[in-house]
């Protein structure tokens, strides 16, 4: 199984990962609507970095939570797929898993599909904080 690994100690909060992800998936730069979100724990001054992206462990809580067939497990690719025409914007998937995101503009559910095996966020990370994990 493939997944994206996050190394918090290397992350420098440049937001290039979420920027390029949103540009690729949504056609505009919208980090809050990206499949990957990085943020800083603001409880401490210049505190540690956090990352939220599908970890591909595939407990698939989001799929289980979806009352329709808007989120579907794609076994061949090893990722969850989203179908907007089936989505009723009920928010169940967002409640079920913190690594599921939503594009606030078009209400699309955003969940990492690993860019068909060549994740842009990994390519763009300037510090190696994101790496390609699992089997190739």
């Amino acid at each position: 199984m493939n997944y994206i690994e996050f190394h918090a100690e290397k992350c420098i909060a440049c937001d290039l990962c979420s920027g390029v992800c949103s540009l690729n998936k949504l056609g505009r730069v919208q980090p809050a609507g990206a499949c990957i979100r990085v943020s800083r724990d603001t409880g401490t001054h210049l505190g540690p970095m956090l990352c939220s992206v599908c970890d591909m462990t595939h407990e698939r809580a989001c799929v289980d939570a979806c009352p329709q067939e808007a989120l579907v497990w794609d076994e061949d690719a090893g990722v969850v797929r989203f179908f907007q025409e089936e989505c009723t914007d009920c928010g169940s998937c967002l409640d079920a898993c913190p690594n599921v995101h939503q594009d606030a503009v078009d209400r699309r559910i955003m969940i990492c599909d690993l860019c068909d095996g060549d994740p842009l966020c990994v390519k763009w990370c300037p510090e190696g904080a994101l790496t390609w994990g699992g089997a190739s």
Partner: protein
Amino acid sequence: MKYGGYTGKFLTVDLGTGAIGSQPVSDELAEKYVGGRGFVAKLLYDMLPRGIDPLGPENVIVFATGPATGTMIPTASRIAIGVKSPLTGTISASYMGGHFGPELKYAGWDGIIVTGVSEKPVALVVDDDKARLVDAGSLWGKDALESQQALQRQLGDEFRVGAIGPGGENGVRYGTFMHQQHNAGRGGSGSVFGSKKLKAVAVRGTGGISVAAPAAEYIAACKELHDIIMENPVRPAFRWPGTNGMLPNVNEAIGLPYRNYQDDKVPDVGPIHHEVLDTYVTSREACSGCNVICGAVVEFEREGRSYRSERIDHESMWALGPNCGIVDLMAVLEANYLCDTLGIDTMTTGSAISWAMEMTEKGLLTKDDTDGLDFTFGNADVLRPAILKISAREGFGDTLALGSRGAARKLGKGEEYAMQVKGLDMAAYSPRAFTGMGISYATTGRGADHNKAFTVAAEFLGVLGDYDRYSLDGKAELVKRMQDSTVMIDSLIMCMFTVDLGISVELYARCASLPTGMNITADDLYAIGERVSTVERLFNVEEGFTRADDFLPRRLAVEPAPSDPGAHTLDMGDVLDDYYAAREWDADGVPTAALRERLGV
């Protein structure tokens, strides 16, 4: 708005009435003034009556992003904050990085225009297209970091927050606005916030910003630009020591001002060398959209007090350190942290202290004048109490809160030891060693600023040519050209460091064209630079500034640096005439009618 990269509107906030609204950004404003510094120049020129008190109710705060801000163009994280400066009386824009500018764009705003005065302390909360003023009485008096953290707890991690500290609240002439630990504040924008009782601004943007080009094409074009920086041989020098790498080099070149510009070389920079500073780095930090990564977090202790802070930068290290004759790293790091969190500009603070030190050395100030504080060159222990007194405007601190020139004028002595132009103090590059910096200090609209034509790149780093750094030959034209190209960097808004990292004027034009869809050439870019420089000049001329204000401190012309075997000095001589001619300004420094017509201003 027909162009990409813009949201097409400013948020307007009248603190007097509490009215919140929006104002469109016209296509013409975008074409002629781009964004950032250009927007600040045009809006303040049009909005401000002449002759107002910068700390009075009529001043206006303009937050302005540029079309590249938050669009993946490398380093385009910055936001300009423009005011009529309470330190200089000139038009003034200061800049900060971090994540505030992009977030404002994602919230749907190219900028914020703040007018009027609030009766009570307030914070502005911008939550996408909705904005509100909330009571900030509980934050007033808190430092800029505590204030951010309190708001962050109230609003959540997703908000990007900035605040002023006591310095801005109390009307220190050089108060700053701080987001994370990025500061906008040379020229004292934070004090204008204080005069308006605007304590803090928080922004959350869940929307996005659209660019002109199709996504795949745009991603590929941006990647090329990022790769140019990534592969530049100079990048590792920025990535690890940050700007601090400059200090030993400039010192070795006998160009690092020491003891209030009495010399240009520090006998021993060893204790504050970046290799020592590096040992305190515990993690790294960048602004949004940046792959240069000059930032880092340091942790240190001084006299039992523990600090976790953004790593100090070269200019702040110099101003609070060598220019005060100090090479005590812990004392300087503490002073930098205190200036940041108390909300006063590190460089102006350092220069006010170095002025007091020279006044003490010359016997013009004694401990009786300074509340017993010992302003002897090299006394690291005076930094902390002096900074606390300045930010509180208490005792002698109230005098230093005016800046070096203001302090000299208040006391009626020692203006010749105020190392400033137009009231803004000079920076860490001596004009005796880099003549272009001298012309830049003398002519830049907001005073002796090192970042509006960083000629050191062409005179020392070999990035933009190979000029003789001691000669004035060709420098008037160099300064003019660099001031104009810097306008574009400050308007897009990108980081100054990209100049040294392979981003040419042609590539800045590309960075302007890609998100907007405009077809901007290098020639257009220079024309925009001339236009913005001219509007800034007109503002100052109409405020009463004349040729006499484009000067350098006399010391530079008559006192060579004792450490310099070449005994160089810098007498500006006729170079101002050459500069005005290159600018098409008349002999008094007033933009000619022909120029105004050509530029459409």
